[in-house]
């Protein structure tokens, strides 16, 4: 093969390390028992059906989409500790993923979701909807402003509580990178007592979901900040391609 041009990273995606993710069946998280496939997953080399993915343009974003303190508010700011969450979306080779759509949702400062199935007695905040979205810039960066969500009880064991968390849905550049995860907060002792978190086998993998308090990104006298980087699957480069080009 010629020694040029430079390899481009448009091959198949690195195989997902299933031991790093929670397995489907995590019996301490009871709902997983009947919702976990029992057969082995069918391994499939990436085809165009997985190596392609939808594009979301910055034009679809509203001005307040990344400001949960204001984007639902009518009579004043949402109540709670004001925080900025920021970070980068990277791939497994450390390259930024620009143009990634992030959707995030969370409970209010009291731990209450705005959802008809929610039954926790904590008060609804009339000025807090609980959702927002961003698209990463050329360097893979995103940021949003919100209030720190509260912990909440949930029906699993009779006394199980979720640590404070923010849910994230991420679209990278291909459907193979599609991911939903949750962000936790540095220093929260409840992380290590949560059946959903503890479904992740490796403590280092859990740590990857814990956002760091980032004093340098705070706004003095205004808003604390947490840094949360997200890593999507990397992809093989085509240094020596042994399959038909164009397919």
């Amino acid at each position, binding site marked *: 093969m010629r020694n040029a041009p430079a390899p481009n990273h448009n091959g198949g995606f690195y195989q997902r390390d299933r031991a790093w993710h*929670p397995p489907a069946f995590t019996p301490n*998280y009871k709902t997983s028992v009947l919702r*976990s496939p029992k057969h082995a997953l069918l391994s499939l080399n990436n085809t165009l059906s997985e190596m*392609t993915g939808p594009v979301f343009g910055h034009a679809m974003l509203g001005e307040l989409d990344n400001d949960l303190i204001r984007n639902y508010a009518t009579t004043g700011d949402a109540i709670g500790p004001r925080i900025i969450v920021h970070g980068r979306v990277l791939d*497994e080779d450390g390259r930024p993923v620009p143009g990634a759509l992030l959707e995030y*949702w969370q409970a209010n400062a009291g731990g209450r979701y*705005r959802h008809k199935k929610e039954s926790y007695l904590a008060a609804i905040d009339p000025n807090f909807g609980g959702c927002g979205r961003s698209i990463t810039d050329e360097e893979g960066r995103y940021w949003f402003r919100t209030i720190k969500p509260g912990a909440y009880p949930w029906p699993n064991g009779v006394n199980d509580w979720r640590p404070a968390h923010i849910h994230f849905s991420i679209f990278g550049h291909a459907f193979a990178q599609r991911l*939903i995860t949750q962000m936790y907060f540095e220093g929260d002792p409840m992380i290590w007592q949560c059946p959903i978190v503890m479904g992740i086998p490796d403590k280092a993998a859990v740590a990857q979901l814990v956002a760091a308090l980032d004093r340098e990104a705070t706004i003095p006298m205004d808003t604390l900040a947490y840094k949360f980087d997200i*890593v999507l699957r*990397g992809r093989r480069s085509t240094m020596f391609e042994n399959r038909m080009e164009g397919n």
Partner: protein
Amino acid sequence: MVQSLSRLKESPSQTAGPYVHIGTTPNFIGINHVYAQDLGLAPCPAAAKGQRIIITGQVFDGSGAVLRDALLELWQADADGLYPGRGEHRGAADPNFPGWFRQPVDGVSGIYRFETIKPGAVPFIDGRKMAPHVTLWIVARGINIGLHTRMYFPDEAAANEADPIFTRFELRARLATLVAARDGEEDGVPVYRFDIHLQGDKETIFFDI
């Protein structure tokens, strides 16, 4: 000692949980002031080329109960077998076809419903044609990592037989789980019924892609 490859690890998945709608389809659950419309929820634009179809079904757990809190995403090629968005290098797809749709199942019946067009065939890695199919991704409370599957068409028997997945002998007994059932039509639009079984005798084939 050895040099470090210094790669990062993919962020581990966590369940979408019961409140996934808040972040993904807020208008669907009555959070109406934030986004003008829910992303991916609109039916396929009328201007898209191709045979219009409806894909509908339910998601079942291992006890046979219907999930009422699942969210499905659909990703497919256009009528000519070209993908919109990123990663398609064979040509430009139909500009009126988004390729990606998202639907929460109904909160009571658990039924999901996509109004789209029938995709064209897309080549496999080795150049053989794959049979026309759509990719589905399922998330819900109790699903720790999103499940990928494919739906193939019952009226494409010959193409299905030749599809590289369908020729994998070890799957013979379960391949039917990937093929929708034709379920009549609505106003002349063919309806395909595709139920997804997370577990049990009829467990759907899910992919590690």
